[in-house]
């Protein structure tokens, strides 16, 4: 596939994509729509039953309600909170199940429109990825790892892997349990076209970064205000992070996809961490599954990810 992200973006709005949806995924769209309706009816049914049960309990104890609330105030509120939390969890679970099913059905087809991307279905992928990410210096230490979606494919000669991951650090237990979000977003990696042996990390400016590698002070003051660079080889870091590279990263930062991006050059690979709390590649529950705009949105998400490679010129063996 030689097209760049702008070409794919144009195709997403062209009749070619419309025809592709009509011919290749029409049947899948219809079955996803049936699943969606089923999920919505189930959620409505559960919510209705929950309201009826709750209403019945309240109405049947109406006369003694004030006394009960006065006597067992804390227990009542805890019970009500727990009751509705369970209902919400059940409904969210049903919605999540639908979204996962829809994604598994639709995403491979949309990827086939781009050409050379596929979903990773290896059951060991998550544990392997967890082990791989934990050894990088791209993110702070974490002890909880989850991976939602994993794609891989060829883009401009690069074998690109895209994983939607969440990293957390949980400390303490019980009342003192504290969960810190380390990273939530896309983890992208591909083999670097430039050779390097050391490790160079580019992170957003922070007082709380404790990286054991020496800091690299670069010439671009605007870049220095936004990013901190660490490397075990000062010269290699400057070979990789040229003035042009710094400018491109600053341009990318102004785009929505690149506003919170971190980069590392480790193990001969380029790693990108694109921080974003949105759920990627999701089929919405509340919109008709036969609406092509939903799938165009997924395609445009993939396009925005690939645009990073084009904007940063990672696919060209120039001075980075």
């Amino acid at each position, binding site marked *: 596939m030689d097209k760049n992200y702008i070409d794919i973006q144009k195709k997403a709005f062209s009749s070619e994509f419309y025809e592709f949806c009509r011919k290749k995924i029409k049947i899948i769209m219809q079955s996803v729509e049936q699943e969606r309706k089923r999920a919505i009816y189930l959620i409505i049914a559960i919510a209705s039953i929950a309201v009826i049960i709750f209403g019945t309990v309240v109405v049947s104890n109406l006369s003694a309600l004030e006394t009960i609330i006065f006597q067992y105030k804390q227990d009542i509120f805890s019970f009500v909170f727990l009751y509705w939390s369970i209902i919400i969890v059940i409904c969210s679970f049903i919605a999540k199940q639908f979204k996962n099913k829809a994604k598994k059905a639709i995403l491979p087809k949309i990827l086939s429109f781009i050409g050379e991307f596929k979903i990773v279905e290896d059951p060991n992928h998550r544990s392997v990825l967890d082990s791989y990410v934990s050894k990088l210096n791209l993110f702070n230490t974490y002890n909880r790892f989850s991976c939602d979606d994993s794609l891989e494919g060829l883009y401009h000669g690069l074998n690109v892997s895209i994983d939607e991951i969440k990293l957390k650090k949980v400390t303490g237990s019980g009342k003192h349990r504290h969960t810190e979000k380390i990273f939530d977003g896309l983890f992208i990696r591909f083999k670097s076209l430039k050779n390097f042996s050391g490790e160079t990390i580019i992170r957003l400016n922070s007082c709380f970064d404790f990286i054991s590698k020496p800091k690299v*002070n*670069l*010439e671009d003051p605007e870049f220095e205000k936004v990013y901190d660079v660490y490397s075990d080889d*000062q*010269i*290699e*870091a*400057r*070979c990789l992070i*040229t003035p042009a590279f710094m400018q491109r990263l600053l341009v990318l930062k102004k785009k929505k996809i690149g506003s919170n991006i971190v980069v590392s050059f480790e193990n001969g690979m380029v790693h990108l961490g694109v921080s974003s709390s949105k759920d990627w590649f999701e089929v919405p529950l509340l919109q008709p599954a036969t609406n092509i705009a939903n799938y165009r949105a997924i395609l445009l998400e993939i396009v925005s990810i690939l645009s990073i490679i084009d904007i940063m010129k990672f696919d060209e063996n120039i*001075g980075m």
Partner: protein
Amino acid sequence: MNLFILIAVIVVVVMYSYYATVIRNKNTVLEALSGIDVQLRKRYDLIPNVLTIAKKFMEHETELFEKITQLRTQASNAMLGSKEKFQAEAQLDVQLKNLMLNVENYPELKSDATMVQAMKTYNEVEENIAAARRFYNSSVKILKNSIEIFPGTLFASFAGEAANLSYFETDVQSKQPIDASKFL
């Protein structure tokens, strides 16, 4: 009394940290200078190989080859960090660029496999040299900041000869735009 001791300790600690910073920055400059030299050595080793390959095809460019060889010898013999070395290197930069432009006039040479490999290696070496120079300039800037801003000025003498080093600059000739039509 205790307050005076405390103040004295704080002053000593602060002064020591300034002293240590100047020494650290001085060593970084020397490291950076040495880093440039390491990369330049790679270039010096590469030049004879490039000239040997080029001579087979560019029989009439003997003057350019002699100039490059002379500048290479001059640069490699000059002292690290000296003005003579910087000047010789700057002129060598210009002549090597002229050589690479001249290669464009010899399609057989340009497509020769060993020449292609040599040019690729040359480009990588040049990138590394540029990066090493950037590191050097950055280190010199940090050292100059640490010894020119009070109270770092009190410790400037500890920077030794490194305090007198200047930024790497290209010479006037290499700042001139190259007229490619002269070589085509």
